[in-house]
């Protein structure tokens, strides 16, 4: 029988999608359904003086309008996601300031787009009509539009300190955000900085000494700009109150349905058990659907209040103001090296613009920190991260989640070493890689989950060599010289990175056989298009010896499996995949146990369970393959059924034949406990041609060497890498969320926010290396985010290399004509305009 894991199995869900029969949230419609729309703040910072909804309510077709004052106990601070593990709090004593969002804006608005009111009407056209009649009186305040402005003494406060102090004094905030060591009795023993939601320094080794004794120190300032995921399908929710208004069913386009359920329960004051959150097909997620949002609780609130189904869809103009932003980070960084370019130490300070609310305290800053330590050997490090509050859309992780930004900084520094010491950039990397023979390598800091950061597998030097060979690095310099003679500017860039995936602590899978002999795999993680319905079916089918057509994966439905964490941090394959493996093994064990009893009499000395295998839908003796029990027979005996239909009568009597020692049922749940993350790695390289007169460029070649451990499905893996790389390229070249000095979001629709198209992208050449993860049975490492990490570093390096005759230095993205032409101008004048502030 064929094995499915590792094979390029074509996807099971294509049939429905291709025929236009897959239901996305926008396709769901139920009788009696109302449609909601959010009235959003047009000001970046203002006091709300009054809200008048009378005229809007009077419009025909408008059913209800809610503001914060109408919500009673449901007007609350909403939880943040991803709290600090205690070990991290105790070791690094981060100064965390809670600034959570509230169900609706109350008293004040803090960013353009902040939800102020919810309109419920019979359709969206009418709701939009009504929105124009909602009179909100604002008293505008000065907005803070960037991190540097936010820190200036005398600048406006995005949040007042008192409210933060009140919040952190209560649970769960107290234990999420602070260590016991940070309290003197009931008072925090430190002060928060101005508009600073987090201030945290991670130190490793004697970094000052390293810098003091270094032959060379290079410093610079690096900017990663603001951009975001923009899944083609926006967010959406359909909340249906159950009959008798006992709880509800919520369909949502959401990556963390269990968190969503908890949020609803908490905010509405109803039992979690009575809420079911389920997923239709999702049109992409990328992190934007794993956020903390008012709509997630407002729509269920309205449904419950009105006793009718309420649906909300985020349109694409709203998306830019309503869904999380990401990536805006500014690094002041310096690297110390010996005379040959070996790294002695790394010091950096990063300002992360987290927008108006602090919804993801640990992820962005700390994830960045962790990815500064590999794949290069960094013996000493000091990194200070500050998350800064500004009057912009709140930030949350977007595919890559802090890794692209820090990898950009680190690889630019490597290129700087190369330039200053006149060493080939490839050699600088070669000298500094952590080698396979040094593994497991303890990086000296904790990972975001609180465990020691240990790089345990991966061939970082090998990945670079494979990459450079594939792109023809040695020959390129000749080609580059030749082109320059023809006044053409070609350049090459490279970037290497590690990538943590599969964060725990846990994820579950529930596998059950159905009466008809098919298998259901219930998962809490969500399929946003990355092929769970196929990849996890492959794992299960292999373990159970079943044909993959009989294995059906249902993901993201809280009714299917009791507990789950969700889809983020490239954790699906690792955590859910291994949970599927374990749960399958449990089911397999039961089948084997039953089969061993059924075959007992036919084998002298009885049947050893270890001698049984599941193959071709049979439980069969390895030592005597002619002796077997069909799985269907086992299912018939084990699976109780409540019907009295003719076909069931037969199985009814079969059930009576179940040996006494075995319990009925073929429904097993297992959890994969992830001790810590797994570490993949990649090497990206690109060749570009730049037009220095126009400030434009074209990518001629792009090569990726990618190691994500064992590959469940090479087709799906390849697709994930392609997609990630193109998003990374889009971010590096085109996509930019632009705010003007008044705090208005200028790029607020898909005409202004330019996404990469087919003709912008060359063929991505992908090479796969496999270093199995030692810490999980499947050996997988996580592939969802990797592609997005390399492109900014690679493309900036390549463009800079192309323009090296001009002596250009580029330390920021995006690579717009503005950035490129300014870099050329600055080089002519002699020196960078940026000053580094360390």
């Amino acid at each position, binding site marked *: 029988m064929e094995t499915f894991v590792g094979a390029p199995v074509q996807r099971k869900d294509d049939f429905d999608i291709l025929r236009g029969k897959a239901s996305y949230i926008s396709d769901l419609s139920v009788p009696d359904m109302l449609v909601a729309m959010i009235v959003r703040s*047009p000001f970046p910072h203002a006091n709300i003086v009054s809200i008048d909804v009378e005229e809007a309510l009077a419009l025909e077709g408008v059913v209800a309008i809610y503001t914060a004052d109408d919500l009673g106990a449901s007007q609350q601070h909403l939880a943040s996601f991803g709290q600090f593990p205690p070990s991290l709090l105790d070791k690094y004593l981060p100064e965390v300031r809670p600034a959570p969002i509230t169900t609706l804006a109350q008293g004040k608005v803090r960013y353009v787009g902040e939800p102020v009111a919810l309109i419920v009407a019979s359709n969206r056209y009418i709701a939009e009509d009504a929105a124009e009649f909602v009179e909100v009186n604002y008293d505008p305040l000065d907005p803070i539009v960037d991190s540097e402005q936010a820190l200036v003494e005398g600048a406006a406060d995005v949040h007042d300190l008192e409210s933060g102090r009140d919040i952190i004094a209560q649970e769960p905030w107290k234990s999420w955000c602070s260590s016991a060591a940070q309290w003197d009795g009931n008072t925090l023993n430190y002060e928060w900085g101005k508009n600073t939601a987090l201030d945290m320094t991670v130190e490793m080794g004697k970094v000052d000494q390293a810098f003091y004794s270094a032959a060379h120190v290079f410093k610079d300032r690096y900017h990663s700009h603001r951009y975001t995921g923009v899944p083609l399908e926006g967010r959406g929710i359909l909340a249906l109150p159950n009959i008798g208004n006992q709880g509800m069913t919520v369909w949502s386009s959401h990556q963390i349905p269990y968190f969503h359920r908890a949020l609803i329960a908490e905010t509405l004051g109803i039992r979690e058990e009575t809420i079911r959150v389920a997923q239709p097909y999702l049109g992409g997620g990328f992190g934007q659907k794993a956020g903390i949002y008012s709509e997630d609780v407002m729509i269920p609130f309205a449904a419950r209040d009105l006793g009718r189904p309420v649906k909300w869809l985020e*349109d694409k103009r709203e998306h830019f103001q309503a869904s999380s932003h990401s990536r805006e980070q500014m690094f002041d960084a310096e690297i110390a090296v010996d005379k040959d370019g070996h790294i002695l130490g790394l010091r950096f300070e990063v300002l992360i613009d987290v927008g108006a609310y602090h919804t993801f305290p640990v992820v962005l800053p700390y994830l960045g920190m962790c990815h500064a330590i590999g794949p290069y050997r960094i013996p000493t490090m000091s990194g200070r991260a500050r998350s800064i509050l500004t009057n912009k859309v709140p930030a949350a992780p977007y595919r890559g989640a802090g890794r692209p930004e820090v990898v950009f900084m680190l690889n630019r520094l490597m290129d700087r070493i190369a330039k200053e010491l006149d060493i080939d950039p490839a050699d600088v990397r070669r000298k500094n890689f952590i080698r396979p023979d040094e593994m497991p390598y303890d990086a000296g800091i904790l990972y975001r989950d609180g465990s020691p950061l240990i790089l345990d597998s991966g061939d970082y030097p090998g990945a670079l060599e494979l990459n450079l060979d594939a792109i023809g690095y040695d020959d390129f310099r000749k080609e580059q010289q030749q082109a320059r003679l023809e006044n053409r500017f070609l350049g090459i860039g490279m970037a290497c990175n590690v990538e943590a995936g599969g964060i725990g602590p846990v994820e579950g899978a529930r596998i059950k056989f159905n009466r008809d002999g098919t298998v259901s795999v219930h998962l809490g993680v969500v399929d946003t298009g990355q092929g769970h319905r196929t990849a996890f079916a492959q794992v299960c089918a292999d373990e159970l010896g079943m044909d993959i057509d009989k294995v059906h994966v249902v993901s993201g439905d809280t009714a299917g499996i009791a507990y789950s964490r969700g889809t983020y941090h490239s954790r699906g394959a690792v955590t859910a995949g291994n949970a599927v493996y374990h749960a399958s093994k449990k089911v397999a064990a039961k089948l084997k146990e039953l089969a061993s009893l059924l075959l007992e009499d036919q084998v002298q000395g009885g049947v050893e369970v270890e001698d049984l295998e599941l193959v071709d839908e049979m439980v069969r003796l390895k030592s005597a393959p002619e002796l077997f029990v069909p799985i269907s027979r086992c299912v018939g005996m084990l699976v109780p059924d409540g019907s009295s239909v003719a076909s069931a009568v037969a199985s009814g009597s079969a059930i009576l034949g179940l040996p006494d020692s075995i319990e009925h049922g073929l429904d097993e749940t297992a959890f994969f406990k992830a001790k810590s993350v797994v570490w993949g790695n990649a090497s990206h390289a690109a060749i570009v041609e730049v037009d220095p007169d*126009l400030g434009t460029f074209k990518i001629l070649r792009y090569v990726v060497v990618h190691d994500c451990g064992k590959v469940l499905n090479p087709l799906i893996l390849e697709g994930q890498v392609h997609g990630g790389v193109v998003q990374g390229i889009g971010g590096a070249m*085109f996509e930019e969320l632009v705010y003007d000095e008044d705090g208005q979001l*200028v790029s607020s629709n898909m005409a202004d926010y330019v996404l990469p*198209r087919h003709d912008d992208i060359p063929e991505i050449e992908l090479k796969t290396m496999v270093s199995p993860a030692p810490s999980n049975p499947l050996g997988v490492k996580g592939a969802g985010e990797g592609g997005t990490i390399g492109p900014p570093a690679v493309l900036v390096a390549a463009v800079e290399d192309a323009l090296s005759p001009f002596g250009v230095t580029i330390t920021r993205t995006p690579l717009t*004509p503005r950035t490129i032409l*300014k870099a050329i101008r600055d080089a002519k004048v002699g020196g960078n305009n940026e000053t580094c502030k360390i």
Partner: protein
Amino acid sequence: MPKLGVTMKPAKFDYVVAKTLAEAIELLCEGDGENRILSGGQSLIPAMNLRLARPDRLIDIASLLELRGIREDEEFLRIGALMTHDEIGASQIAKNLIPVLAEAISHIGHAAIRNRGTIGGSLANADPAAEWPCVLLALSAQITATGPSGERVIPAEEFFVTYYTTALSHDEIVTEICIPKKMASLQWSFQEVSRQQGAFAIALTMAGTTIASDGSIAEMRLAVGGCGSRPVLAIESTTDLPAGTMPNTDLIEEMAERALQKLEPSDDAIASAEDRLNIARVLITRTLSKVFQLYVERGQA
């Protein structure tokens, strides 16, 4: 001024299909509310979805056959205002006379937009970074506008007033675009710089020339778009160049510098105003060089 909420559905309006041009004009003048003409809708409907445009009544002229057709007579290539970009690009008559039109049209959006968008609609929209305004200005086109008092001809040089504003009065409809056939004798080149196909152009240029037997420039026209509130006729040989001017690199540079004087580009995240001027300079230089080179090649062919 903060923008109104986030809408993607149009506000309410009345809708009527005009059966004749006369009826369309009558409806345009009628009533107190705002009446607007609907042809392909590729500029108007997005604006209505965003509720930036909120007409009280839309007058659909798409079925007016009298506004369709491409033909040539003694003096002009005549294009009906309702011809779509795709139809004009595919027209053999247009290709034979002015082959550069197809090149310029290929920069307009993508196929789906070109299948519905009309030349009349594009002109009435008057986006300074759009292709048609720049192209028709270079070609010295004459735009026929029909209103309650009849037809009048507005030369392209007078048609574009400022951002999204034309010389049309509120009760006039663009009915025909006439390109003088003598423009066909010029060698043309069209160049555009944008982030990607279909995105807002950063700058665009259309240059045309004829060279006399002694090698001097007989005719020269250069229009630049995307660098100000309307397309600019940056060079016109009758006013800008003395007779006997020889085309060479120095002249090209000088013409580019002079052209830049007439441009007022904006500043945004993609390119600063200074960047745009530099980009325009490069584009103008390249277009002029190209057009001279093509002219020579055409002569040799």
